[in-house]
């Protein structure tokens, strides 16, 4: 419609044609050529007026005005490059920060899987009657097989599980992100191969040999996208897989936050697991199940279908070694379906709140930035009052002037948005690196999508209205005569302008204070966590992860192999001591069960839960865990001897209250709920963190590695080093290689392991600190600018005051008084907002409450000091006014 508009020239031609026709007709009626022409014109009326009416009626006018406004706006912005640069940069930071956080939210929470019709996909979950929530999305393979074989509601159903596979054959590990997939995985997702073929149901049959599909990225990175990659053999945890195809480029897997490198069929798990394969294990929870419902099957029909299916599925996959009451509960479980369009993500639970928090923070930063620009625009509008007054006097409409001023704002914010998107691209990449750890590399699809671009455009428009409208309205509400006289005096006649600028600055202060408080809380929270007493010494400890099963060492030789490696590592130069454990400290993994003693009142449920680890006798010394009483493990603690344990203080306190725990015994309940053999406490060790940094230290019992009941194939070595731990890596590799070249080795330092578990806190502290500082800087620029402007405007007044005998000190006080009033309002409002708003931070803090007084006081102090400095500079300038100069000017 807009572009099909007639051109004015066409309209003019039509009028010409009319006049010709009319003249012709009049001539036929007997008029002379000249008379006819005049009469035709007369009958037509005012030709120019008709053309004007055509022009005004059309959007041509609108278009011309827009072009005019853009030209004018660009000219004004070019005339003032300093202002333009500051404004664009400020906006770019504000808009960029918002775009960055929003694109993370988009990538983690909102983006749909890159498969055809993702909104059809449904995740299957297991709902346990009596539980709240949506149900548990993990399955055992027996349950999955039952669902696959019995269901009739899905046109296709599939299962998958993330894993990691070692590509190296012994020595330092080289992990690839693995994906176990069921036969119909690719078919149901309707994906097409980029090369070769994808896995099908024929590949996923019990007893399968290995076929593997590479991700497009992995194919490009490792094989340069060569067709020759098809048919080659990959070694995954030393098992051979033939590459049969490559997945499409946009498909990164079902889990948002990571990408897969190689996908292999579920049936291949049999090769990895040895005797107790997860394929038949009835309490090995590792698969996620989803499907595409048959066409026309509604959500309700789907739910009904799954409900009917449930008893058959669970009866056939019942874990018969569970306690009877738990088996009974198991049989009552129900399958349910939930939407799966956005895939699954462990990132969501972890970063949901932090991201929302950061979104609020950057929103506030943007508001503060807007306030700065509004304040600059007000100053500029004041400077342009004469210009605007002349235009108004010449007949420019108010609406037209507002439009003109807003066009400038839109230009500014568009430029800001463009630069902001660049900032955001860079910022999100950085952010992803911040939340990535050595163990868990985060991958997000951060390509700009329509949602992110729409968001950026929306906030650009929103901000331009926010910072443009008030100054524009102000600018046109001027008294023409006063403005045209060009007197400075008009300013002091209208002190209201000052007041609105003061309000802007005060609100900036308030918002900055809120951000400073938030930053302070997160920084303190992180500091508390980082300096927390772990109960062990994290520095100079090298962790060496192993896997004897991958190296195909038979279970009966595993203990001996480990002991041999341990003694060799202990002999390495640079190694002060060596320990070994089933679980490395702060690994995130845990092993627990309920225990019973005869010395305390019977504890039940979670109260009776204790956490366990098998460790060698070098473990406590290596980690600098102080033995408080009793003895360490000794040579005599063998499988043949009585079972012994070293317990921590918490366990002693809870299970042996007011007793000396040494010499007492406890029993671990076995899987059927029956108490096991008695275990004697031989030592008491100081409390230390077990699985994570944030936890309350759990009751922990350490058992001697020599008494391990079953096979132990994934032990970890801890090496206390006298030199930099990473310098020992090659020596360790060589030493382990001497024992067995097939053993895969994974290296971390304990310090790194501890730091990685604080990734969320670190991110929040880093970002809130950064944005808090940014907000403070912006607010101070605002204050400084406003005061400088005020001082410049009141120069005459100050000059007169000084000519009349005012001391420089009193002028200084005059200006500083307005700084203090602005500061006071800002602080009061800021504290009020903080108290109301920080409650939502509760869950994200560690070791302090959201109303932490120290943080509040510190934030107010920082704000006040910086505000006084920012205010003092222009105030001092006011005292330097030369009365003679100003009086002469007036």
């Amino acid at each position, binding site marked *: 419609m807009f572009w099909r508009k007639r051109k004015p020239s066409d309209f003019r031609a039509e009028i010409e044609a*009319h006049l010709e026709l009319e003249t012709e007709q009049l001539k036929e009626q007997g008029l002379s050529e000249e008379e006819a022409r005049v009469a035709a014109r007369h009958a037509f009326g005012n030709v120019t007026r*008709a053309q004007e009416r055509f022009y005004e009626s059309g959007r041509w006018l609108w278009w011309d005005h827009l072009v005019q406004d853009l030209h004018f706006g660009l000219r004004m912005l070019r005339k003032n490059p300093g202002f333009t640069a500051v404004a664009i940069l400020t906006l770019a930071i504000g808009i960029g920060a918002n775009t960055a956080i929003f694109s993370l939210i988009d990538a983690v929470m909102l983006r749909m899987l890159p498969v055809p019709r993702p909104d059809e996909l449904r995740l299957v979950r297991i709902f346990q009657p009596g539980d709240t929530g949506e149900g548990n999305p993990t399955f055992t393979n027996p349950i999955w097989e039952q669902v696959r074989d019995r269901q009739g509601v899905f046109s296709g159903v599939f299962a998958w599980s993330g894993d990691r596979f070692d590509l190296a054959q012994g020595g330092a590990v080289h992990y690839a992100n693995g994906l176990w997939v069921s036969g119909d995985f690719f078919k149901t997702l309707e994906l097409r191969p980029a090369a070769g073929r994808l896995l099908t149901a024929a590949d996923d049959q019990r007893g399968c040999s290995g076929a593997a599909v590479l991700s497009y990225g992995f194919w490009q990175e490792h094989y340069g996208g060569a067709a020759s990659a098809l048919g080659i053999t990959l070694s995954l945890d030393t098992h051979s897989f033939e590459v049969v195809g490559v997945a499409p480029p946009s498909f990164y897997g079902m889990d948002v936050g990571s990408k897969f490198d190689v996908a292999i069929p579920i049936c291949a798990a049999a090769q990895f697991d040895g005797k107790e394969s997860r394929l038949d294990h009835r309490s090995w929870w590792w698969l996620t199940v989803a499907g595409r419902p048959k066409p026309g099957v509604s959500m309700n029909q789907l739910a009904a279908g799954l409900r009917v299916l449930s008893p058959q599925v669970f009866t056939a996959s019942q874990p018969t070694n569970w306690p009877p009451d738990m088996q009974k509960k198991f049989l009552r479980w129900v399958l349910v379906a939930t939407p799966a369009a956005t895939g699954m993500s462990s990132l969501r639970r972890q970063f949901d709140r932090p991201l929302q928090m950061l979104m609020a923070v950057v929103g506030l930063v943007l508001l503060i930035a807007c306030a700065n620009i509004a304040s600059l625009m007000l100053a500029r509008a004041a400077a342009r009052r004469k210009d605007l007054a002349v235009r108004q006097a010449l007949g420019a409409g108010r609406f037209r002037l507002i439009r003109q001023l807003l066009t400038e704002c839109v230009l500014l914010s568009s430029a800001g948005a463009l630069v902001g998107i660049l900032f955001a691209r860079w910022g999100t990449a950085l952010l992803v690196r911040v939340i990535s750890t050595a163990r868990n590399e985060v991958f997000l699809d951060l390509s700009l999508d329509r949602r992110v671009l729409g968001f950026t455009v929306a906030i650009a428009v929103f901000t331009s209205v926010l910072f443009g409208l008030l100054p524009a309205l102000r600018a046109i509400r001027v008294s023409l005569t006063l403005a045209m006289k060009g007197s400075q005096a008009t300013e002091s006649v209208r002190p209201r302008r000052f007041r609105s600028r003061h309000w802007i600055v005060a609100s900036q202060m308030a918002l900055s204070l809120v951000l400073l408080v938030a930053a302070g809380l997160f920084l303190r929270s992180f500091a508390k966590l980082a300096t927390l007493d772990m109960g062990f010494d994290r520095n100079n400890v090298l962790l060496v992860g192993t896997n004897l099963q991958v190296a195909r060492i038979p279970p009966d030789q595993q203990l001996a192999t480990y002991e041999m490696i341990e003694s060799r590592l202990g002999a390495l130069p640079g190694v002060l001591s060596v320990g070994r454990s089933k679980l490395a400290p702060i690994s995130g993994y845990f092993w627990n069960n309920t225990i019973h003693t005869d010395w305390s009142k019977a504890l039940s449920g979670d109260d009776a839960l204790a956490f366990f680890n098998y460790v060698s006798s070098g473990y406590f010394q290596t980690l600098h865990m102080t033995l408080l009483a009793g003895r360490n493990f000794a040579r005599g603690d063998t499988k043949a001897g009585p079972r012994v344990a070293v317990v921590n203080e918490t366990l002693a306190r809870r299970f042996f209250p007011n007793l000396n725990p040494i010499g007492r015994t406890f029993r671990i309940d076995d899987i059927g709920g029956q108490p096991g053999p008695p275990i004697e406490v031989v030592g008491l060790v100081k409390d230390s963190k077990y699985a994570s940094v944030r936890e309350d230290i759990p009751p922990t019992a350490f058992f001697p590695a020599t008494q391990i009941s079953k096979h132990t194939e994934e032990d970890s070595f801890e090496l206390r080093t006298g030199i930099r731990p990473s310098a020992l890596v090659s020596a360790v590799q060589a030493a382990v290689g001497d024992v067995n070249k097939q053993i895969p080795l994974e290296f971390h330092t304990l310090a790194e392991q501890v730091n990685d578990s604080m990734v969320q806190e670190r991110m929040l502290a880093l970002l809130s600190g950064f944005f808090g500082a940014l907000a403070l800087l912006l607010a101070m620029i605002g204050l400084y600018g406003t005061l400088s402007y005020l001082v410049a405007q009141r120069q005459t007044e100050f000059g007169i005051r000084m000519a009349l005998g005012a001391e420089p000190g009193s002028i200084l006080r005059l200006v500083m008084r307005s700084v203090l009033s602005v500061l006071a309002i800002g602080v009061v409002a800021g504290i009020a907002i903080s108290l109301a708003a920080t409650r939502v931070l509760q869950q994200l803090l560690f070791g302090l409450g959201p109303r932490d007084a120290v943080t509040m006081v510190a934030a107010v102090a920082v704000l006040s000091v910086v505000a006084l400095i920012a205010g003092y500079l222009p105030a001092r300038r006011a005292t330097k006014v030369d009365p003679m100069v100003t009086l002469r000017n007036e």
Partner: protein
Amino acid sequence: MSTQKEKDRLELLQGTLDLLILRTLIFGPQHGQGIGRAIQQTTEDELLVEHGALYPALQRLEERGWIAAEWGTSTNNRKARFYTLTRLGRKQLVRETTKWRRLAAAIGRVLGPEAGEG
């Protein structure tokens, strides 16, 4: 042709020009000048239609989609922009005509029989 003094003519009521244009086009495509002529003739020169006012009106009707336009050649072989009534325009004409008739009748009733007029 324009012998009658202009002060004797009736000024067009607001909005009636649109109606007259639509009505005129019911007999087939016509160019602007022809429409002007036709209105003058059918109203027996009672109405004052300034030709200049015709074109913005035509433009407006075209934008609303009630008429469509195309350049063509007139009977005496001159280039002219011809207007045709669209289906939408036809509907609008019916609506407007009914409205106008009701209005005229209502006003007529208020004013009473013609004899009453001095």
